[in-house]
């Protein structure tokens, strides 16, 4: 009897076991049963055409009907009766195209990636939590809920929209990444929208030179710092033109202490370079310089290029507002865009808003630290990490009034540019208010006054907000909470026991660098110094390499009767200002050597027009050579593996031009010889060519062309999903050209707006597509046009019932009773 039952049941048990096994992931292997089932698996993401999207959608939570049009580029145009429905629909529509991406960003920002990818993400997660990303997002939410009903209502409506989409989402329609990584979307919340903003704060203001420059000061002394790390570049074209009268003086309530360099208790191990490719351009010209007599405005933020793209285009309209532009998936409102009367754009300020204070703990319990003549209590926060396939982990963070102590000696560091035993003061951890209102008001701004009112509400990351209106005003403001700093404050690690080193409040909004309608009839920014050294407060000693700014300002100065095409050409400008400045001098050195000056390589350089164009070979040689020369000059004296910062490229070029016999050109590793500049120029030139020949074969082939060597690629956010990425994109550019396209970074959105009294014209595109679904034709459809430097005409509808030939689908979002 028993045997008969066993015989009858064991196949059933095996079948259940197999079903279970195919229903779940095993390590990196996804749940293959679920995934390959044609009913629920990845084949179901093959996306419906627009025709399938016609008709009515019943959605609970809306107050009134909303009309939604999709144009031929997959851009949604939302027409709502009120703000609640507008942001509800925005949340719904963005989630429809980008749900996985927006949730992925928030998991990264809040240090929760270990929950989906396992232990590999632990150090990054812990870093994100220790610097306060999640904690600050939580306190911002608390502040908004109690003090800022407008932001709170917008965030709530947006969340409801996202959640309305999630709750209607069947398993078979889950974005492919959920299916491959085997997890499900969580409920959205206002907190998650704030995490998205924290992500931008980290990307744009999360770098620091402090530790590495302190190492330099310890090794070589302050005289060398003064000589090689000047407070202002040798060539610069600041955002606010030199000679501007500031009309105020610096004010430090607690006084200014002497500058000093502290002894370091321990050295961090391996130092990482900052990310110089993150930057942006924006500019506007007044009607005096345009063909149509009213301003033109342009913006191209340079970020890490990714698929899905960081931006998403849309139009948001109610009876009292109508705006077009790009949004960040996961946050309400348009971030960069235009309306009937104005246009605006942003670039990163990049001033020093992250400082480190050496903390003197009372004892090893770290419960108290010495500050201002007394022991002050630390706060302890304990974070829990859930790790896929492993047990939870706990982590303790000690908080001082400056901020968190990010690393202790016993923690292996994720960011090795951060010192151990130091508390971090970071403007991004400001929690009084969100930046959302700035964008809410900019979306509705009608003139310069509205623009300034909106800007005052902005915190971080500080941005250069460019502005133009159809009243023929142009303006730019370096805006955000900028700490009042005495000269060189926070340039080195600081003494955490003395309150004179503390930040002493914020520069008042009115005193942030800004200008309205300058006499030169244009405004611009490219992450360079906001102002020259006459500006009363110290902002930072190092900003982006000045070449983009120099080129943009030269071109804007030269051009008149400008049109959208003039702007498009400038966006695609590949000119290499460094080459113009430096190459003639370098070639003179090479020319003394007959065996070089008669070569093909030399003649490429000699005939070069300084354009980093896709088809040219000279930029391949020059850019690699300059990089090599820079390393040849500095690597022996400022080795990265000792945590030393090397001088800037600008300083290096000015040293080459002005002081070819400088002692800094001597190679410290050769004891029997004193090198001069010419030796290094020759050595680096020969090395570069020998490497290039090994890598690329005989000179003159396609493999030598700049586009092939630069090899721009746009990768999916999950590095393992290589086939969802786009490689070998053929285009020109360089991180230091106006067209700042490098291998992995570049213009993440290009926009040109022609202001008009009647109706503006917008042009733009980004290197990706509206849909986050790799199965959709709108996943990467803008990349080829982007690589060619073309722009799409943006369809900015006047009203919901406008019959525009480019509209492809119309949907009525109807409140479900």
């Amino acid at each position, binding site marked *: 009897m028993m045997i008969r039952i066993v015989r009858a*049941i064991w*196949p059933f048990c095996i079948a259940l076991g*197999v*079903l279970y096994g195919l*229903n779940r992931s095993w390590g990196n292997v996804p749940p293959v049963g679920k995934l390959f089932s*044609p009913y629920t698996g990845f*084949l179901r993401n093959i996306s419906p055409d627009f025709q399938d999207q016609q008709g009515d959608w019943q959605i609970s939570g809306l107050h009134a009907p909303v009309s939604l049009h999709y144009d031929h580029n997959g851009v949604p145009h939302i027409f709502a009766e009120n703000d609640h429905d507008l942001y509800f629909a925005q949340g719904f529509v963005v989630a429809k195209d980008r749900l996985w991406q927006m949730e992925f960003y928030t998991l990264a920002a809040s240090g929760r990636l270990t929950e989906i990818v396992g232990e590999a993400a632990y150090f990054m997660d812990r870093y994100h939590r220790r610097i306060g990303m999640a904690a600050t997002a939580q306190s911002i939410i608390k502040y908004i809920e109690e003090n800022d009903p407008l932001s709170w209502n917008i965030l709530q409506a947006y969340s409801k929209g996202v959640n309305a989409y999630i709750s209607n989402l069947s398993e078979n329609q889950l974005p492919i990444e959920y299916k491959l990584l085997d997890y499900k979307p969580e409920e959205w919340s206002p907190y998650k929208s704030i995490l998205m903003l924290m992500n931008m704060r980290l990307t744009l203001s999360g770098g620091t030179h402090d530790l590495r420059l302190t190492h330099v000061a310890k090794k070589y002394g302050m005289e060398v710092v003064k000589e090689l790390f000047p407070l202002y570049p040798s060539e610069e074209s600041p955002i606010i033109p030199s000679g501007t009268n500031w009309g105020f003086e610096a004010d430090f309530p607690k006084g200014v202490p002497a500058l000093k360099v502290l002894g370091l208790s321990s050295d961090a191990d391996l130092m990482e370079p900052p990310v110089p490719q993150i930057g942006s351009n924006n500019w506007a010209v007044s009607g005096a310089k345009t063909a149509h007599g009213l301003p033109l405005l342009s913006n191209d933020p340079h970020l890490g290029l990714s698929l899905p793209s960081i931006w998403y285009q849309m139009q948001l309209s109610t009876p009292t507002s109508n705006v077009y532009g790009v949004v960040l998936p996961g946050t309400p409102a348009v971030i960069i865009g235009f309306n009937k009367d104005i246009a605006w754009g942003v670039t990163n300020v990049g001033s020093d808003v992250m400082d480190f204070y050496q903390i003197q703990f009372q004892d090893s319990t770290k419960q108290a630290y010495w500050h201002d003549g007394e022991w002050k209590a630390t706060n302890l926060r304990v974070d829990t990490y859930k790790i896929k396939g492993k047990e939870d982990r706990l982590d303790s963070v000690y908080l001082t009034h400056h901020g968190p102590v990010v690393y202790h000696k016993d923690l292996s560091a994720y960011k090795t540019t951060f010192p151990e035993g130091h508390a971090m003061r970071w403007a991004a951890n400001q929690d009084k208010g969100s930046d959302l209102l700035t964008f809410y008001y900019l979306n509705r701004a009608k003139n310069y006054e509205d623009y300034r009112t909106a800007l005052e509400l902005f915190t971080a990351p500080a941005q250069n907000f460019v502005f133009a209106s159809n009243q023929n005003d142009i303006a730019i403001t370096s805006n955000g909470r900028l700490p009042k700093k005495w000269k060189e404050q926070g340039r080195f690690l600081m003494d955490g026991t003395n309150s004179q080193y503390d930040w002493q409040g914020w520069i008042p909004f009115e005193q942030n660098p800004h200008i309205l309608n300058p006499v030169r009839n244009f405004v611009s920014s490219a992450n360079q110094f906001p102002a020259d050294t006459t500006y009363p407060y110290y902002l930072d000693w190092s900003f982006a390499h000045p070449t983009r700014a120099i080129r943009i300002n030269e071109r804007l100065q030269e051009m008149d009767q400008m049109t959208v095409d003039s702007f498009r050409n400038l966006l695609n400008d590949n000119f290499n200002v460094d080459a113009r400045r430096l190459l003639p001098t370098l070639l003179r050195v090479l020319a003394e050597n007959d065996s070089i000056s008669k070569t093909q390589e030399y003649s490429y350089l000699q005939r070069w027009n300084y354009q980093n164009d896709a088809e040219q070979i000279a930029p391949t040689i020059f850019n690699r050579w300059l990089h090599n020369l820079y390393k040849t000059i500095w690597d022996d004296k400022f080795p990265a593996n000792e945590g030393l910062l090397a001088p800037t490229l600008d300083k290096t070029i000015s040293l080459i031009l002005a002081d070819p016999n400088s002692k800094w050109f001597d190679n410290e590793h050769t004891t029997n010889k004193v090198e001069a500049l010419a030796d290094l120029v020759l050595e680096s030139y020969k090395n570069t060519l020998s490497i290039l020949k090994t890598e690329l074969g005989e000179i003159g082939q396609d493999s030598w062309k700049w586009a092939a060597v630069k090899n721009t690629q746009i990768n999916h956010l999950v590095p393992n999903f290589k086939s969802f990425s786009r490689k070998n994109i053929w285009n020109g550019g360089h991180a230091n050209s106006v067209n700042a396209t490098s291998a992995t970074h570049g213009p993440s959105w290009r926009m040109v707006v022609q202001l008009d009294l009647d109706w503006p014209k917008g042009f733009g595109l980004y290197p990706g597509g509206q849909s986050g679904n*790799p199965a959709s034709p709108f996943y990467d459809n803008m990349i080829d046009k982007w690589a060619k430097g073309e722009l799409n005409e943006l369809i900015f509808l006047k009203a919901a019932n406008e019959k525009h030939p480019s509209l492809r689908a119309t949907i009525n979002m109807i409140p479900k009773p």
Partner: protein
Amino acid sequence: MKSFWISFFGILISAFFVGWIGPWWVIFIPCFLFGLLVNRKASGAFWSGFFAIAILWKLMSLYWISKDSVQYYEQVLKIFTDALPILASWSPKIVLLSIVSLIGGFVGGLVTWAGQALRKI
């Protein structure tokens, strides 16, 4: 033989409809029921379930692929073939249809057989 064909067509048709609702494994409920109620022999049960689901999944997959305008299924498959390079030497369509038929067929056969086995009680 008759019970094989009843089981085969019964599973094919009912699984086709049931598949649209619920999680991926609901299509195996008809397999189980036909195995339990119709099949006399273990081998007949297994192969009727195997071929019914293999053919159903294959046809369904062909239908979705026909709507794929961007070679998306090849990209997804590449994530697997990067890890298992031996698969990359065949045409992606054949690889995909083979994987789909084998997984679906194997589970379909197994569950149908499991249903049939319970008749022994």
